[in-house]
């Protein structure tokens, strides 16, 4: 089934109607039916925009929903005329104006009830729309912490959506928020952030609507500091030094605030008596692995297991497992370790080369292991580590070895 979306306006009520229609044949949606549905919608002051999504056989319109928005963009509860959880029928696709597709994606980003529209992967009924989007002129950078830096020449305002990969191989639109853009005669510069969800993967693309156009923003990957630097350079080029500096300060403050709540979560105290798991960082150093083996009798008195996370974890685990009696958990990243579960009720003891060497040194110079982290804070740690772009540095920071990587621009 192919849906055709057209727009119409009823001047007398101030309603903007978005009507769905099937192009031809007996299965066409009936305007009469739509009319009656529209009439069921309650007009509000300033007008209501209705996005109509029709699903299922045309005669029955079983999955029809109305998505009202006020003219000033406020979202109203969706009006469901059928089971809102049922996805579109196989093969259903959105065909319509690009701006309407963007509006639908924008609505889906905000309202979980619309998520079925984005099935099957990669982008549900909007897959064809997304693939056909033209590239918008401009530059965009995406950092692993979900932040995006965007330069749109000639634009004065822009809406941005990040595309976040799902576990099923699809994409979820995610609305970007952030400080006010820097708008100059040359264009619009923006640093914006996807919502910080601890275990969500970073965005892989951007779509935007600006200057009456809707399209993809070809984005390069970058780490957060490099992105801040690149955007700062554009700001310096297109705005006065004071404006550029103020814009950068605002963006950094937003980032700090965004990460602060997660960082606070790291201070959570483990449950008393929680089994302790050693979380070493610096696995690429062969002497760290060797020390773990040589000190196993000491480690086994305190720890129930080792958790190795990061790019070197697999190789380190392969080397350590036959040499240790202690169980050795291996994860490609802290986020993977958090997803594996099993650590939520443990106390994770981070240790880097310095703290491990000090904790396992001969008695006179021995130092305690670093304080333990509540295992339930592992997702927050993973998110922070991603924000800083360096998982090992994040663990090292918790072990008292170096600055918090997420505190850097």
């Amino acid at each position, binding site marked *: 089934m192919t849906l055709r979306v057209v727009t119409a306006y009823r001047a007398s009520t101030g309603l903007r109607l978005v009507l769905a229609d099937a192009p031809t044949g007996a299965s066409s949606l009936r305007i009469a039916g739509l009319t009656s549905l529209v009439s069921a919608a309650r007009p509000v002051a300033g007008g209501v925009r209705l996005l109509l999504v029709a699903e299922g056989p045309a005669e029955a319109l079983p999955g029809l929903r109305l998505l009202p928005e006020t003219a000033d963009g406020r979202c109203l509860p969706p009006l469901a005329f059928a089971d809102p959880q049922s996805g579109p029928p196989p093969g259903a696709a959105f065909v319509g104006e690009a701006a309407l597709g963007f509006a639908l994606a924008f609505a889906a980003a905000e309202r979980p009830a619309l998520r079925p529209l984005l099935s099957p992967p990669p982008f549900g009924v909007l897959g064809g729309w997304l693939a056909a989007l033209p590239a918008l002129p401009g530059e965009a950078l995406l950092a692993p912490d979900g932040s995006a830096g965007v330069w749109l020449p000639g634009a004065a305002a822009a809406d941005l959506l990040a595309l976040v990969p799902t576990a099923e191989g699809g994409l979820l639109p995610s609305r970007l928020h952030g400080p006010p853009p820097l708008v100059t005669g040359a264009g619009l510069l923006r640093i914006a952030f996807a919502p910080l969800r601890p275990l969500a993967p970073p965005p892989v693309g951007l779509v935007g609507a600006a200057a009456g156009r809707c399209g993809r923003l070809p984005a390069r990957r970058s780490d957060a500091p490099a992105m801040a630097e690149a955007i700062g350079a554009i700001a310096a080029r297109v705005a006065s030094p004071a404006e550029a500096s103020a814009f950068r300060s605002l963006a950094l403050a937003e980032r700090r605030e965004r990460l602060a709540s997660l960082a606070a979560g790291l201070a959570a105290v483990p449950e008393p008596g929680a089994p302790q798991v050693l979380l070493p960082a*610096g696995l690429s*150093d*062969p*002497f*760290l*692995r*060797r*020390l773990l*083996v*040589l*000190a*196993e009798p000491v480690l086994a008195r305190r720890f129930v297991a080792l958790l190795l996370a990061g790019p070197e974890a697999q190789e380190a685990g392969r*080397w350590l497992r*036959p*040499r240790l009696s202690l169980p050795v958990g291996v994860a490609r990243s802290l986020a993977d370790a958090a997803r594996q579960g099993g650590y939520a009720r443990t106390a994770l003891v981070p240790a*880097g*080369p*310095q703290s*491990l*060497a*000090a904790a*396992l*040194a*001969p008695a006179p*110079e021995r130092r305690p292991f670093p304080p333990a982290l509540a295992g339930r804070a592992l997702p927050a740690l993973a998110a922070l580590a991603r924000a800083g772009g360096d998982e090992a540095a994040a663990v090292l920071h918790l072990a008292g*070895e170096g600055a918090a990587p997420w505190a850097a621009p």
Partner: protein
Amino acid sequence: MGGSVDVCVIAHAHPALSRGGGEMAAWREVRALRAAGRTAVLIAAAEQPPAEWPALPEGESLYDAAAMEEDRLAWAEDPARRALLSRLLATGAGVFHLHHLWRVGLDLVAALRAARPEARLVLTLHEMLAICANHGQMVRTADGALCAAAAPEACAACFPGRAPAHFALRRAAFLRALSLFDAVVFPSDFLRRRYAEWGFVPRAGFVVENPLDPALAARPRRPPAPDLAARFAFFGQPTPFKGLDVLLSALRLAREERPGIALDVHGCGAEEVVGMFPALAPLLSQLGGAVRFRGRYHPTEVLDRMAEAGWVVVPSVWWENSPMVILEAKRAGVPLIVSGIGGMAEKVRPGLDGLHATPGSARDLARVLAEAADPALHARIARSLADAPSPQDFLDALGPVLGPGRG
């Protein structure tokens, strides 16, 4: 290798493949123990492919170190580590005596300790590898300057690709490994002190001189010929640490004062020296017949070769631990001129066993060579020169190290 043995000696090499001081000491220990009625076996590392391994006598065997990590301080391939551990355990030895941790592996030591907690583990340290990543030499990588103490920041300066934290880890790992041994042997008190300053004091530490070849020990000691005071000899390889380049430069300077001074170089040829030190080629031409390259020699020839010299010179530019050549010169009755540092300074009492020179200084060594060419001084030092410890001295010292046998 069936049945239980008393002592299993594990070495980083076998004399059939290389003849460094450490492997010679391990091999001679096994021979000495057997001569004393104890059952001992030698299991030694080999870098050569097994197809090239020589046939060895009963009780001596090799293992392949190729399955180790590049620095030869741990095993890359676990099956090979397990296989070696099984071989060691199959000896049923009550004492495992390791010479070196290099080519043996820190992880193997941990596994051996865990598998045989009641066994006596003994380690002989032949250099400062645990302290210094520069081949255990405690010599700075950039300029060859002597290093007096290891510290993470200073070590990182020697190895710019490595962080200070790496060296903290390295030290902690080595200290853990060393703590697994019941007894540790230092061939020199200098080495014992260096390890103590670094932070390692063993549960039971012993200073035991490396054993000399029993055949050499049995040879009668001859007084040196009186007319050899101006005849010097160098024994060894032209490596950057042995100081042969310094000695050759010193020879030229010394001959300006004493033209009769001459040098025999044993253990290598002129082409090997020029290969290692190309800049010395003009100097060798200039020295002409004052330097004779006598080539390689069999260990049994060493005393005879030394007897042709008035002095044996050990001009090493690193600390040395207990160079075998010093023992051999003492056995030969030939006075020594050594760099006045480390194990050399300890083993050669100035004015009694020989003379000291400033390491790395051709000028100071030239001064000492010229001074040594005095026949009266030579004769006086030759009279007071100590002999090398005898095989029985070695066994007596080794007794408390290894503990009582199973007899």
